[in-house]
C-alpha cells in the first residue's frame, strides 16, 4: 500500500498556539486540524506533534475539545455521522484520513484506553486475547498464551491475576480493570497509545500504579493522554498541550508549562484562576 506522504510543515502557518508545536522526531504530526459537529466547530485549527516515545498530555477545561482531538487520532470519531474532520493528520508521514487508510488497521496501530474501565464481559484471558485473535497475530495457541502473559506482565497485572485468567474481567477492581484494558491494548502491539482520562475513575493508589505504568510504557510506545488532573499531567508527561474552547493555546515542555507558562490562559487554568 502506498500512501502519499506529505512534508510536515510546508506552507502551513501555525496560528494562535504559543510555544513550539514541532517535535524533533514526531511519531504523529497534526496540522491545521478542524473538527465540526454539524455546523459547530469543536476543534479550531490545531497543529501539534506527538514526539516519539514520549508522553504528551492534553489538558484543558471540560468541553475544550481535547477528548475530541484525541479521538481523531485513531478515527474513533468515524462512528459519529455528524463529525467532519479537516486538516492533515500524519502517522509516520502517512495521512490517516486518506481513503486508502483502513481505520481497522489504523486502530491496531493506534490503540486507545478509555476513561471508564471497559473490559469485555469475558474472561481475563479472552479480554487480552481478543485483539490478537481478530487481527490473527498469533500463529498457535502457545503464541497466543505468550502474548497474553507478556501483555499482562507489561501492564503490571500478571502477578495479581495469573491464577484466575479464566475468571471474568469485570470481576476485577477498577484499577485492575483499567490495567486489563491497557494490557488488552498492548496485546495488539500498537505504536501509539491514546488514553482518555485513564485514571479519572480510580483511587489515588490505583492512579499511581497506572501512572507508573505509563512512565514505563513510554520506552516502547508513543503516548498521548487526556487528563483533568494537572498534577497527573505534570507527573507523567514530557510535553503538555493546553486546549481552550477548541483551540490549542499553548504547547511546551511540561516543566515549562507548569513553572512558567507563556500564555495567560494557560497560567490561569493551571493555577486555578478564573479563565
Amino acid at each position: 500500500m502506498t500512501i502519499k506522504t506529505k512534508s510536515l510543515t510546508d506552507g502551513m502557518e501555525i496560528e494562535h498556539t504559543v510555544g513550539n508545536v514541532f517535535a524533533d522526531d514526531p511519531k504523529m504530526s497534526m496540522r491545521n486540524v478542524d473538527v465540526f459537529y454539524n455546523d459547530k466547530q469543536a476543534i479550531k485549527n490545531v497543529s501539534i506533534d506527538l514526539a516519539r516515545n514520549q508522553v504528551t498530555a492534553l489538558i484543558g477545561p471540560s468541553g475544550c475539545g481535547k477528548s475530541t482531538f484525541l479521538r481523531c487520532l485513531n478515527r474513533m470519531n468515524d462512528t459519529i455521522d455528524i463529525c467532519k474532520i479537516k486538516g492533515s493528520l500524519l502517522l509516520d508521514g502517512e495521512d490517516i484520513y486518506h481513503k486508502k487508510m483502513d481505520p481497522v488497521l489504523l486502530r491496531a496501530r493506534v490503540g486507545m484506553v478509555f476513561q471508564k474501565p471497559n473490559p469485555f464481559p469475558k474472561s481475563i484471558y479472552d479480554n487480552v486475547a481478543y485483539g490478537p485473535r481478530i487481527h490473527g497475530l498469533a500463529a498457535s495457541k502457545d503464541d497466543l498464551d505468550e502474548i497474553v502473559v507478556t501483555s499482562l506482565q507489561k501492564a503490571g497485572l500478571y502477578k495479581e491475576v495469573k491464577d484466575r485468567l479464566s475468571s471474568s474481567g469485570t470481576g476485577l477492581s477498577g484499577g485492575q480493570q483499567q490495567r486489563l484494558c491497557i494490557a488488552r491494548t498492548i496485546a495488539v502491539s500498537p505504536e501509539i497509545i491514546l488514553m482518555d482520562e485513564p485514571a479519572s475513575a480510580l483511587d489515588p493508589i490505583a492512579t499511581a500504579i497506572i501512572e507508573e505504568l505509563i512512565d514505563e510504557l513510554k520506552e516502547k510506545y508513543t503516548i498521548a493522554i487526556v487528563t483533568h488532573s494537572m498534577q497527573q499531567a505534570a507527573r507523567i508527561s514530557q510535553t503538555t498541550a493546553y486546549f481552550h474552547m477548541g483551540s490549542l493555546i499553548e504547547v511546551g515542555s511540561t516543566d515549562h508549562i507548569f513553572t512558567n507558562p507563556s500564555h495567560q490562559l494557560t497560567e490561569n487554568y493551571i493555577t486555578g484562576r478564573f479563565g
Partner: protein
Amino acid sequence: MTNQLKTGQKALNMNDSSMHSNTDRIKKSLKKRNSKEKRFRLWGRLAISFGFLMVAILFADIGTKAYPAFFQHWIKVDIEFNRQWLSIEPSDSAVRPDMQALKQANYSATVKKSLYQMFPSITARGDKRDLMKLLSYSAEFKIEDLVTANPDLLGQRVSLWLLADDDVDSYFKSDFTAGQSSGRINDKQAMWLKQLFDSGAVEKRFNTLFFTNSDSREPELAGIRGALSGTILTMIIVLAISFPIGVSAALYLEEFAPKNRWTDMIEVNINNLAAVPSIVFGLLGLAVLINIFGLPRSASLVGGIVLSLMTLPTIIIASRASIKAVPNSIREAAIGLGASDMQVTLEHVLPMAMPGILTGTIIGLAQALGETAPLLMIGMVAFIVDVPTNFTDAATVMPVQIYLWADSPESAFLAKTSAAILVLLAFLLIMNFSATFLRSKFEKNGQ
C-alpha cells in the same frame, strides 16, 4: 459593647427560633407526606392482591372445570367373538378367516349382542337402543383391532374394558344418585349403570386419549394431539422466520443504518405495524400466500408465515431496545482494538443484547400462540381429525381447538375446553422457562 453583644444574641435567638419553626413546619408536612406514602403503598398492595386474586380465581375455575376431562369411565363388557354375530363366512371354527373377511366382519352387531347377553331381561327395541348408548361407538373399532391383531380370539368369550359414552361419563362425574335419572341418562339407563357399577364393571381411569387423539365429534374420543402438533409446527415456522429476520433487522437499524428520514420512517412504520389488528395479517395471508403463491390452505406453513408477520414488530422493537441498552463503552473498546463493525456487532453487541432479545421473542411467540383471528382467514379454524405431520398438512392450533370445543353443544366438551386451556398455559410456561434458562445461560456467558 454590651449593647452590641445583646443585639447579637437577639439576632442569634431569632435565627434559632426561626429555625425551630422551620423544623416544626417540616415535621407537620412530614406527617402528611408519610401518610400519603402509606396510602400509596396500600394502593399498590391492593392492586397487586387484586391481580393475584383474579389470576387465582381464573386458575381455580379452569382447574376445577378441567379436572374431569383428565379422567374417563370404562365399562367391562363380556364380548363373545361369535362367528355368526360377526357374520364371518364360513362359520366353521376350523377354518382361519383371511384378513379381508376380518375387515368386513360386523363388529357392531357383536358388541350389541354381547351387551344384550349381559342384560337378558331387556327385550324392547327402545331399551336395547338405550342400552347400546351406554358405550362409546369406538367399542366396535377396539374389538376389530383386537381380532385383526389376534384372529385366535374368534369363538372365545373375553372380558373387555370398553370406553363409556360421554353421557355416561358425564353422569358418573356429576352429582348423581344411584339408579336415578340425571342429565341425558334416563331412569332405565341409570338402573343398568347401577347394576354395572355394583358389579364392579365400571372404572374411572386417567384419560390418555385426550393426549393421543385428535379432534372428534364424540367428546369421549376428542383429544388435543392434532392441535398441539399444529401449534408446535406453526411455532417452529414463526420462530424460524421472525427470530432471524427480526434480530437482523434490529441489528441493522441500530448498528449500521444511517440516521436519516428513511430510517425514521421505517421506525415509525415498524411501531405502527405492531399496532395493526391481527386479522389484517390473516387477510394478507389469504390474499398473497394462498391466492397468489398458491400455498395450501389450512397449512401450518401459511399460519406460521402470517403469525411471523404479526410477531416481527414485537421482536424488532424489543431487540432494538435491548441493543440500545448495550453500553457504548463496549463498542468503543472493541472498535479501539481494531474490530470491524461486523465483529463489534456479532461478537459484543449481540451476545450482550441476547437476553433482552430472547425476552422479546418469547413475548412475540406467546402472542402468536394465543392468536386465532388471522388463522380464521387462512382456513386454520377447521375441524381437522388427522394429526399434521409436516408443514403443509391441514392443521389447527390450540386456541382454535379451544374455540371450537367451547362452541360445541355436548356438555363433556366444556371440561375439554378447560383442559385444553390448561395445556396451552402449560405450553406457555414451558416456553417461558426455556427462555429464562437460555437467558441465564447467555448472561452467564456474558460475564
